[in-house]
């Protein structure tokens, strides 16, 4: 894990090295300054030597300036190294995600990827800065102060050493036991928030069933549990401060007592005693800081793990060594194809599928939910790889083509489709970035999208919001079809892409396809029989197996599943559609 993450420091190695160096230099200054302070009191004030005060004061100002300089440099490089590290992490993850295949994407959810790229990176950025700035500073400070104490008086310094060991052990104990409660409490806290979320979005249900009191009771119980958990954890942490005080106060008293005897015995000066008392605070404080760093780092470990999962993920699809860059035609052959999303699962999603589709044919695909319609077509543009058998496009195995070439020639309109924020033109040009306005308009005409686009005040320059929220479902689907058409594909696949388009428009789109792009192989997945009945042939899928592959008429007479669906839809079970505005 450290190796994966460390590789992303890249150009910020020098900043990452400079930060602790400056922080250590700053610490050195900060250990020297108390010495000067002591000297001001001892040799200046006590001795009545004003010039010594001035001279030492001058040195101290110099030391303070140096310390300031080091501090500022530490601040600068620390910021650069940590924010740069975060930038590289995001970059590396994003780049790797771009190489992901569909099955890689399926493995991480969208929300999971977003969290990794945002919150988790921020957590690591904080932790990294902390490590650079504090992880060296605190122990070095501790060691320096300890060394100075030993230098002044080994006997007194022993008191500190003992205090540090005891306090360190106790702090560790507190941190570990409080951490245990916190790790239990945080998921509960997330649950509570989830339940609030649920209530906010389902408020109509809550009110319709008059369940306000019931929900309040549930919430109160959850809220009380959380308060109890956090109270437990924080009560343990409440020992931190008094422990710290007891440790430092005990040190002060012990040192005063022993120190007094030593001063009387002339083995220690009063100034040295004062310095020792200052170091006492430094030592114990930094111990406290160390325990906090420890907590921070353990908390960010989970984020680091999640980030590494993305960084270490290897794409499950790779380009062949000598790829083919030419797709001859739009013919498709499924040759004994068996496919599983998860190679460990026993039951295949597609089982021994054999199909031969001629270039230019229009093929309908019909079948219930879970009959693997989408899986079938996703193999054609090699969104997934088959487990057994092979898929041929233009007479060659899809695995022999250059991926980009294949996907540009096989255009898929996905069932779960997305428009991006930007103008309609910009969205269309995803299909062909050099498409001129005429080409865009032509594609929209084929997809029957022109009529509503032209009604928008800004026409083709209309801005589409993120996720296409400002167009209706039917409009979105038609825009997605137009976008896919602009690729001028040899094979066009519509995966339930006109479900929200009304029947009449749906028919118009199919008619346009037949007339304007006759050479393109068209595969249409649909729920409505009316969408596929005019296709050259129709594939009936049932539970991953091809149950029938023939014309509408033949299927109607010979295929039971097809007939059932047909009858249910024509006998009053169909849509009462509202003009594509579903």
């Amino acid at each position: 894990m450290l190796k994966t993450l460390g590789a992303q420091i890249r150009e910020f190695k020098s900043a990452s090295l400079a930060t602790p160096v400056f922080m250590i230099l700053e610490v050195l200054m900060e250990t020297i300054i108390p010495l000067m302070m002591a000297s001001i009191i001892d040799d200046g004030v006590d001795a009545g030597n004003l010039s010594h005060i001035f001279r030492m004061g001058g040195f101290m100002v110099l030391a303070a300036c140096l310390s300031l300089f080091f501090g500022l440099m530490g601040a600068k490089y620390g910021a650069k190294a940590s924010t740069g590290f975060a930038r590289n992490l995001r970059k590396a993850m994003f780049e790797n995600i771009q190489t992901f295949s569909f099955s890689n994407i399926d493995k991480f959810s969208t929300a999971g990827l977003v969290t990794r790229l945002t919150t988790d990176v921020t957590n690591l950025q904080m932790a990294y800065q902390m490590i650079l700035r504090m992880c060296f500073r605190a122990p070095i400070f501790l060691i320096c102060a300890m060394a100075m104490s030993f230098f002044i008086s080994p006997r007194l310094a022993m008191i500190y050493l003992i205090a540090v060991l005891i306090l360190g052990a106790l702090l560790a104990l507190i941190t570990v036991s409080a951490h245990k409660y916190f790790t239990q409490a945080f998921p509960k806290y997330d649950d509570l928030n989830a339940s609030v979320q649920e209530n906010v979005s389902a408020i109509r249900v809550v009110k319709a069933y008059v369940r306000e009191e019931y929900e309040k009771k549930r919430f109160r119980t959850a809220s009380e549990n959380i308060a109890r958990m956090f109270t437990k954890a924080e009560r343990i942490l409440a020992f931190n401060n008094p422990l710290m005080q007891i440790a430092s106060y005990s040190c002060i008293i012990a040192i005063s007592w022993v120190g007094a005897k030593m001063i009387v015995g002339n083995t220690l000066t009063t100034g040295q005693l004062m310095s020792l008392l200052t170091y006492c605070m430094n030592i114990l404080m930094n111990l406290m800081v160390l325990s906090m760093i420890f907590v921070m780092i353990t908390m960010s470990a989970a984020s680091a793990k999640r980030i590494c999962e993305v960084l270490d993920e290897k794409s499950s699809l790779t380009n062949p060594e000598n790829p083919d860059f030419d797709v001859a035609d739009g013919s498709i052959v499924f040759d004994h194809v068996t496919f599983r999303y998860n190679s460990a699962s026993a039951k295949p999603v597609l089982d021994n599928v054999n199909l031969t589709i001629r270039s230019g044919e229009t093929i309908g695909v019909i079948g219930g939910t879970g009959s693997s319609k989408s899986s079938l077509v996703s193999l054609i543009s090699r969104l997934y790889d088959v487990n057994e058998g092979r898929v041929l496009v233009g007479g060659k195995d899809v695995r022999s083509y250059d991926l980009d070439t294949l996907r540009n020639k096989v255009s898929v309109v996905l069932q779960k489709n997305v428009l991006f924020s930007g103008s309609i033109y910009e969205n269309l040009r995803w299909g062909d970035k050099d498409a001129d306005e005429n080409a865009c308009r032509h594609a929209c005409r084929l997809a029957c999208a022109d009529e509503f686009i032209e009604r928008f005040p800004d026409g083709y320059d209309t801005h589409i919001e993120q996720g296409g929220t400002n167009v209706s479902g039917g409009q979105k689907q038609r825009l997605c079809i137009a976008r896919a058409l602009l690729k001028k594909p040899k094979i066009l696949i519509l995966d339930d892409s006109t479900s929200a388009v009304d029947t009449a428009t749906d028919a118009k789109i199919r008619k346009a396809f037949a007339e304007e792009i006759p050479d393109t192989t068209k595969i249409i997945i649909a729920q409505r029989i009316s969408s596929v009945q005019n296709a050259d042939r129709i594939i009936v899928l049932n539970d991953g197996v091809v149950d029938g592959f023939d014309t509408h008429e033949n299927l109607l007479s010979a295929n039971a599943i097809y007939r059932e669906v047909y009858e249910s839809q024509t006998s009053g079970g169909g849509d009462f559609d509202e003009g594509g505005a579903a």
Partner: protein
Amino acid sequence: MAQENPKPIQGRGGARAPRPKLNHPGRLFLKLLRYILKNYAIHCIVVVVCIFLTVFASIQGTKFIQTLIDDYILPLTKQQNPDFTELAHALFSVAVYYAAGAVAAYVNTRVMVTVTQGTLQNLRDDIFTHMESLPIKYFDTHPHGDIMSTYTNDIDALRQLISQGLPQLLNSGVTVIGVLIFMFLLSVPLTVITLLMVCVTLYATKKAGGLSSKYFIAQQKDIAALNGYIEEMMEGQKVVKVFTHEEECLSQFYELNDRLFESADCANRYGNMIGPFNAQLGNLSYVLIAAIGGALALNGVGGFTVGALASFLTYNKSLNQPINQMSQQLNNIVMALAGCERIFALLDEKPETDDGYVTLVRARSENGKIVETTERTGMWAWKHTHQADGSVDYVELKGDVVFDDVDFGYNENKIVLHNVDLYATPGQKIAFVGSTGAGKTTITNLINRFYDIQDGKIRYDGININKIKKEDLRHSLGIVLQDTHLFTGTVMENIRYGKLDATDEEVIKAARLANADTFIHQLPDGYQTVLTGDGANLSQGQRQLLSIARAAIADPPVLILDEATSSIDTRTEKIVQDGMDKLMNGRTTFVIAHRLSTVKNSDCIIVLEQGRIIERGNHDELIAAHGKYYQLYTGAAD
């Protein structure tokens, strides 16, 4: 010895957040204080006393260190046979102070844990309780993310404020005042100089903080832009692959990523710089006092002694830290108060009003007259207590709904429904059709008083629905929404939501009626399967079946149905449809229809356009009329 805290650990986002603008920070602060004191007055007094004790012990400790050398050690060095008993006594009494201080610190933190967690719990409960009482309008007009953030970010900011901010502010304040008093007693001019240096430090902090917050704002903007882009691209990652758009996608990402790096770098840099500045200005102050004080003491000006200077220097040093802390805490407090403002704003929202007095009671028929009863008769009646003379009328609950010239708008000046007249006799099925935005959903929002009408009347069994207690009105109506919402919990609990005292048998019966029983049995734990994330582990069709079962168990005489348009496959669709039909059977039903069969089988079809009823009648009549319905039916219009 003043408590020295470790260098402030960088919070989330690194640099300090910009100070949000608040209208009445003082008033808000008092409001919050009152809220805390309401339940924890005694606790707070204990905390304040403890803080004074801690600070007192700490200052005593500082004072002792000065006297240690002058009053105990130096005299000892001059004695022939040093007698340490006096020192031992002094150390013992200091130890007592210290012990008291440590105990006080423990009591203080521990009590604060109770105060913090208790107050947060009360606040959460109050917010939630109040939220549940708010009208639907509130939820329709406020982004859900904003409401959520009250529970998460705002409460979290408040936690920081109560548990750390307030006690530290008090602690620092008391320390500063205590130290200043001692300083004044030692030397007025030196105190003035020290205060001047404090002002310089505060000024520098403010400057650096200002610079940092400028970049911080830029950073927040860039974070928002990058996160937005990341979300969009991750959402559309499969489309990116299908269109081989990876390169373009990356180049825009690089640009946003680099921009964030630059602003984050600056924001963090200036944020980090505040610490070193403060520390070194503190050292400078020390040197200044040493030099000036030394000159004063050695020339014996105003009886200022060398011993006093030593003490003064120690005080000077212990002043720096609490002042820094105060300036930092003030910033945090303002931030937390912004959250506080949002919390109180939610608590101040007006709850749903209910002036209804007609209630729903169990009834039975006695010699043709309806009388109230406690038995489960299956018969219900509206209990109408007349306000004028206190006499009581009973009207049987049947499910007769009338709209009489109803006007409605989501806000006063924009009416979306005009002159709607409707009637549905018990058991009738009324279908609403029309294009999106025609006002179909709006009408159904009015019957259960999610929204109140502007003009006209809605009568339920002859009673104006404004006179019916909302709770009872809603009990008498069932609703199945297009967006199904399920709750975290078992399948059993989710169905029982419709009737909390339903037995397991009743739940299973309702599930059978809704055609949900079959698939529930196929779930890993059957009825005990736990659903999470709005039933994410179920298909759309299954979720609909559960929401139908939920309505079925409530067994209301009137139903409001919003048919789903989303494409579920034909077979599931048929099951759902069948379940809905069974549910509608024998009930007055208002249905926003999308399925042909539903519309065809309705007793009356209402065609809406732009908030007006333009056609009404049954299927055959409307087809014959060749109007809008005919167009919609034949798909002739877009």
